[in-house]
């Protein structure tokens, strides 16, 4: 259908108008149907309004599911313990604790958040009869569904933004970035400069991979075509992640290759470079829908064993590690072709992707998960006791507000409570002005529609940036909740102010609870999670069993490695939240360098894990030396875990560790010289991988210790408000 006049609005304006329109319509429909509490539909609209249809649907499904499950639980405990308040509070706190725990380990964080919130909302809605509670639960589900459906329809028919359209563009962008990074790494090794030029590329790459995962999750709900090939899409996302890690693992080995002419050792390296370049072009062509071009062929990466023998054993290890990394990159890129062809080609998509033999480690629980449980249960108990013995403003709503804000804090750990409180105060003042001076003069739905539309659109426009979501909600939610829009509207400023105070007290109590059991300040969390990271690294080292007979992948080792990756990610998040203006001695660049160093250590551990999983028939010749060296590393990691502050002091021990390493290397040199096996023997190759992995760990820890020496840890450890 062509339009004579096309209005072109910026995306920000479109999204704001859509949200405002959906909110006003949802409220009107709920009122038209005679439902009480139509503002519940408005809240559903405010919560599920996201930029693309797929993302909104994803969140909507979680919200509806959470409402159902939470509602059922709320009704259950009301039915079981109507007159036993202590058991009632105990059961409620256990369920909220479970929801808090699941929020930290499940993919469906928002589902568990809503489940906990609705459970406490319905459980505390004490009416005159059981039918009242049931009706409330059903109404809540209905109005949530109404809000979701209204927003879905508005976003589908009015300026729809599809995740699926962006997927192709995102794939091409990601392939472009990875091609660029790979070309740069090859150029570093085929020339000899070693600048860290590709670092910004890696950050962008990680961002794009995370974005791809989110878009695929959203697009599955949006387009049937993507839903049908969802297994292949998920496999593709995993492959992009694996490719990113493989390239970084290779990049981590560059310092060890410093004085080696890699082209001499790996004569077909330029051909492999070219072949991989063609492979990535082929991938891009498949995304464009032109896969008919000649498929790139694989080039075997050969090793010149004669030249390799002229190197020291550790240099040989570095070269062979590079060989393994490049073979892995080649294998991953080849399997990406298969995945993309299956996605784009209708004939292939009917086949399921091959099963991934490696166990998938889900998000693991860590001390933060248990802290979340403690906080959530404490919130329920304290708020319930306050409700019973003090009867604060808002009465039962005080319990709801405390719990929902604690759960919100668990969902967004880096929330700035002061700013959030200020946003809510501002929202309450705005709501109060509208409630007292504007709403009493509204006589019909049209005027209410205009008020809701203008207010919602303005707030959404002002806080469109996803980083300002908390401020957006702080402006919208107080108005929607406190004005209590009904068909038969009444005005009671006493109730308004009581609920407003209850809301603010809930935020203050949640802020206080978040200091149990430890401070949530970003710099304190940085220190805490860094110590945890080194404990996890120590656990990994203790599991590193270089038994030559063991060839199966140890799930515990994967679990420890996954925990380290998770901790490194959290440390990066906390580093971004620190208020560096308060700590001028530690500028953001220093903490960014520390975070990068921890990521490097993680990649070195990944290399070591890969090496440790290979069979080691030559183990018996140098097992004692490696065990001694491993024990020394474990001691260092334990001291770093106990007190990262003195990582610099540990640098004195590095020389002892360095001496051990030199001794080990000398012994290995002697041992290999007495052996008469050929270099291409798998045993030698695997031994070199292991030695390279151990050396990589040592170098990464030494670099981290040097960075730690330069960091003013005392300021971050000081008590502060």
């Amino acid at each position, binding site marked *: 259908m062509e339009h004579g006049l096309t209005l072109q609005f910026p995306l920000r304006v479109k999204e704001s108008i859509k949200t405002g329109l959906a909110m006003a319509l949802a409220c009107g429909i709920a009122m038209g149907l005679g439902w009480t509490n139509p503002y519940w539909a408005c809240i559903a609209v405010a919560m599920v309004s996201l930029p693309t249809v797929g993302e909104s649907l994803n969140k909507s499904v979680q919200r509806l599911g959470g409402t159902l499950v939470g509602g059922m639980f709320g009704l259950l405990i009301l039915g079981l313990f109507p007159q036993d308040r202590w058991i009632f509070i105990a059961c409620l706190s256990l369920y909220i604790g479970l929801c808090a725990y699941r929020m930290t380990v499940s993919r469906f964080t928002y589902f568990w958040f809503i489940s906990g919130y609705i459970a406490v909302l319905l459980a505390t809605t004490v009416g005159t009869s059981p039918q009242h509670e049931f009706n409330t639960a059903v109404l809540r589900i209905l109005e949530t569904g109404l809000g979701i459906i209204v927003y879905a329809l508005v976003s589908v028919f009015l300026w729809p933004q599809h995740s699926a359209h962006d997927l192709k563009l995102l794939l091409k962008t990601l392939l472009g970035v990875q091609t660029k990074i790979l070309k740069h790494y090859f150029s570093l090794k085929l020339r000899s400069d070693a600048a860290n030029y590709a670092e910004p590329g890696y950050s962008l790459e990680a961002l794009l991979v995370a974005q791809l995962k989110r878009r695929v999750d959203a697009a599955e709900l949006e387009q049937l075509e993507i839903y049908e090939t969802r297994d292949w899409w998920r496999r593709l996302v995993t492959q992009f992640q694996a490719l990113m890690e493989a390239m970084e693992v290779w990049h981590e080995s560059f310092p060890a290759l410093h004085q080696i002419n890699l082209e001499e050792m790996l004569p077909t390296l330029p051909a492999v470079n070219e072949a991989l370049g063609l492979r990535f072009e082929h991938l891009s062509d498949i995304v464009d829908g032109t896969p008919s071009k000649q498929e790139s062929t694989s080039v075997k990466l050969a090793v010149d064993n004669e030249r390799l023998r002229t190197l020291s054993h550790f240099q040989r290890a570095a070269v062979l590690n590079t060989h393994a990394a490049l073979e892995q990159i080649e294998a991953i890129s080849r399997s990406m072709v298969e995945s993309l062809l299956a996605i784009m080609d209708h004939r292939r998509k009917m086949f399921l992707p091959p099963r991934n033999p490696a166990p998938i480690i889900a998000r693991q629980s860590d001390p933060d998960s248990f802290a979340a449980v403690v906080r959530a249960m404490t919130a329920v108990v304290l708020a319930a006791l306050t409700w019973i013995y003090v009867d604060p403003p808002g009465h039962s709503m005080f319990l709801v507000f405390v719990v929902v804000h604690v759960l919100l804090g668990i969902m967004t750990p880096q929330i700035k409570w002061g700013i959030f409180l200020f946003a809510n105060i501002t929202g309450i003042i705005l709501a109060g002005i509208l409630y007292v001076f504007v709403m009493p003069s509204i006589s019909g739905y049209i005027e209410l529609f205009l008020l809701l539309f203008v207010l919602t659109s303005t707030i959404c426009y002002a806080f469109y940036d996803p980083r300002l979501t908390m401020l957006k909600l702080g402006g919208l939610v107080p108005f929607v909740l406190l004005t209590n829009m009904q068909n038969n509207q009444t005005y009671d400023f006493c109730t308004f102010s009581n609920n407003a*105070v209850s809301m603010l007290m809930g935020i*203050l109590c949640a802020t*206080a609870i978040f200091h149990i059991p430890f401070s949530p300040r970003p710099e304190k969390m940085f220190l805490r999670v860094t110590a945890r990271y080194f404990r996890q690294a120590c656990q990994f080292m203790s599991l590193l069993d270089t038994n030559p007979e063991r060839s199966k992948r140890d799930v515990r080792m994967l679990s420890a490695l996954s925990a380290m990756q998770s901790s490194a990610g959290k440390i990066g998040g906390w580093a971004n939240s620190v208020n560096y203006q*308060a700590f001028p001695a530690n500028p953001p660049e220093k903490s960014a360098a520390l975070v990068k160093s921890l990521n490097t250590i993680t990649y070195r551990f990944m290399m070591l894990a890969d090496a440790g999983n290979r069979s080691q028939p030559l183990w018996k010749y140098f097992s004692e030396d490696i065990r001694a060296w491993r024990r020394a590393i474990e001691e260092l990691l334990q001291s770093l875990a106990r007190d990262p502050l003195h990582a610099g002091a540990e640098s004195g021990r590095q020389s002892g560790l360095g001496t051990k390493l030199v001794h080990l290397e000398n012994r290995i040199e002697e041992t290999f010289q007495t052996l008469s096996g050929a270099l291409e023997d798998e045993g030698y190759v695997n031994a070199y991988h292991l030695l390279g992995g151990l050396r990589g760990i040592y170098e990464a820890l030494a670099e981290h210790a040097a960075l730690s020496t330069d960091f003013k840890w005392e300021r971050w450890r*000081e*008590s*502060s*408000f």
Partner: protein
Amino acid sequence: MLSAPSEVNIGGVYFPPLFLAGGLGLLTTYLVVKLLTRFRLSRYFASPPLVFLALMVIFSGLIETFFIVG
């Protein structure tokens, strides 16, 4: 004879005195805490959150006693 606190009348809207005292006490505590942090005096406290809570109670009590007249 002690005067009992009664509602505070602001523009015809009656507020409980504890509400105003608590609000002003929170604001005062926040400002004091900012100063303590600014001059690094907070490092002498073992548990700053408890100090915050204590200051809030103290300031709320003082404000209600001396400024909010019953």
